[in-house]
């Protein structure tokens, strides 16, 4: 396995990729707060809850996972899966933010921009 020179052409390719990726990532961080929590299992929608309509936090159990919905957002409270990635995602608040528990095939997604709140009152 020989060594190869790192060329200018390659550096430009990497820089372009890096800028593109960073741009998309920043754009995804700048989404407004969402209004609705969508809970799916195996890709099929189970619940769609308007968060502002909740007077106190509500817990749902989906395929072993426990999901808490409140006015502030949605989060996985617990899951029987080994990796706990879904729980570590923490509270989801922005539109588009998603936590997926792959082993249990459950996902929680926040949908709708801030505008939807004022329409539904």
């Amino acid at each position, binding site marked *: 396995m020989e060594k190869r020179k790192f060329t200018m052409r*390659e550096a430009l390719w*990497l820089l372009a990729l890096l800028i593109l990726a960073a741009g998309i990532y920043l754009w995804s961080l700048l989404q407004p707060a969402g209004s609705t929590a969508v809970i799916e299992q195996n890709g*099929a929608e189970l619940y769609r809850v308007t968060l502002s309509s909740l007077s106190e936090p509500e817990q749902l159990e989906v395929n072993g996972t426990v999901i808490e919905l409140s006015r502030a957002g949605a989060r996985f409270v617990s899951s029987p899966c*080994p990796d706990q990635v879904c729980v570590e995602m923490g509270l989801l608040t922005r539109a588009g*933010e998603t936590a997926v528990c792959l082993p249990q095939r459950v*996902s929680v997604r926040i949908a709708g921009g801030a505008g939807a709140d004022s329409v539904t009152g």
Partner: protein
Amino acid sequence: MQGKAKRIALCGLLGALALALSFLEGLLPPLPGLPPGAKPGLSNIVTMFAAGSLGLPYALAVAILKGGFAFLTRGVTAGLMSLSGGVLSTLAMWAVWKKTRFSLLFTGVCGALAHNAAQLSVALLLTGPAALFYTPALLLFSVVFGICSGLALRLVLPALTKLGTFIQ
């Protein structure tokens, strides 16, 4: 036939190294600023070297071994993720290294991108479009960690080349 025995021995060594690196990676605390579950992909360094020095079949064997180990120790989902990511990134790195003149850095980035693309596809199949939310973060960290793993291999290559030329 002696050459072949040496290749198989080196392949076994690299397989053990890939397992050790992915175990070490699991011990790291969650990196700040990274989405939970995102890992630097240290074992890509090993499959990249295997693809470059031993060739595609041996590199794939390392990736499959690592997938099988994840399957045994961390369950079906982790096994599927590791296997799909490992096999596709090995194919991508082998193709870039053997068919183009790009350096290890670019090869590493292509490997990391392929790794995440495969895992994202498996996640899409398992849950549905919700998994697409992770695309921007995965894209960014693939480029960053791909450069890191390419750089890491570039730095250790002088030592590893002795092994590589030893088997030629």
